[in-house]
């Protein structure tokens, strides 16, 4: 399986993602934001970080960079694209995904482990995943998912909600909503489910001794689904 990770000026989780993808069997290439063409890929990843220093709005400048034309085209042809954290913000700014990420409700940068409940397994990212609730890491200042009332109805109706913040048993309520996101939303798909954006970082949870292995579960399952 071929994958690529796009590096923008200010990306800082690109290398971690590269390590994670290779660890689980992807042949990964790094792609610079000024490149025009994507290499042959079964999966394109937009990594976390602070692209362009979060100027204007998080992800807004990166969403207009040269490589993004190819990324948008790839998405429209059904290519699998995953955006993590800042990558999620970039995908929202391209309008490949619905909604927007606002500043966290209590204005603090949040850096901690959280539990997320998988809401939809009928897609290449979570099909056959053996756990319903994953422990993953979040680190962000703008992770407060927001969209209009019409959009929330639409993403609900189309089963586009990928992940909810929850407790370890998968219970979803305000107490386990870290950042004020509408309905505890931690990740969403596009209508066709080939594009996924999420705030949690699976690439930070791939070492049994350091972090636990719920990220490993995610990546192992992902590569099997893409084969």
């Amino acid at each position, binding site marked *: 399986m071929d994958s690529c990770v796009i590096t923008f000026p200010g990306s800082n989780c690109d290398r971690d993602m590269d390590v994670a993808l290779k660890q689980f069997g992807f042949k990964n290439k790094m792609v610079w934001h000024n490149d025009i063409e994507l290499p042959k890929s079964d999966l394109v990843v937009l990594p976390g970080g602070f692209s362009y220093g979060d100027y204007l709005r998080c992800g807004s400048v990166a969403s207009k960079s040269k490589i993004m034309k190819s990324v948008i085209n790839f998405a429209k042809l059904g290519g699998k694209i995953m955006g993590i954290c800042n990558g999620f913000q970039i995908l929202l*700014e391209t309008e490949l995904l619905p909604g*927007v990420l606002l500043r966290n*409700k209590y204005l603090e940068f949040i850096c901690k482990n959280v539990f997320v409940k998988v809401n939809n397994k009928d897609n290449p990212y979570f099909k056959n995943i053996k756990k319903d609730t994953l422990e993953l890491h979040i680190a962000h200042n703008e992770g407060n998912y*927001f969209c209009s009332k019409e*959009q929330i109805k639409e993403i609900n109706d189309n089963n586009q909600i990928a992940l909810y913040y929850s407790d370890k048993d998968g219970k979803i309520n305000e107490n386990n909503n870290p950042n004020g996101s509408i309905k505890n939303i931690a990740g969403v798909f596009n209508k066709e489910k080939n594009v996924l954006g999420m705030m949690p970082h699976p690439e930070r949870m791939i070492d049994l001794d350091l972090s636990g292995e719920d990220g490993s579960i995610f990546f192992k399952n992902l590569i099997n689904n893409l084969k």
Partner: protein
Amino acid sequence: MKVQVIITLKKNVLDPQGKVIQQTLDGMGFNNISEVRQGKFFEIEIDEKDQKKAKEKVEDLSKKLLTNLVIEDYKIIESQ
């Protein structure tokens, strides 16, 4: 010519920064301020003499880059 653009959050969008500013003002003794909303201000120098054309261009770039229309509104102010 110079064109100015003001971006504000839509009314139904929570503005925690504005709220903190309002609370701080209240703590400083400015206690008759019921709400503060924070926004952005852009001053754009554009090489275009025709006011209408300049405004159209700024309108276009405001929609495409400066504003996220899910949460924000923009207002264009022309000046020389």
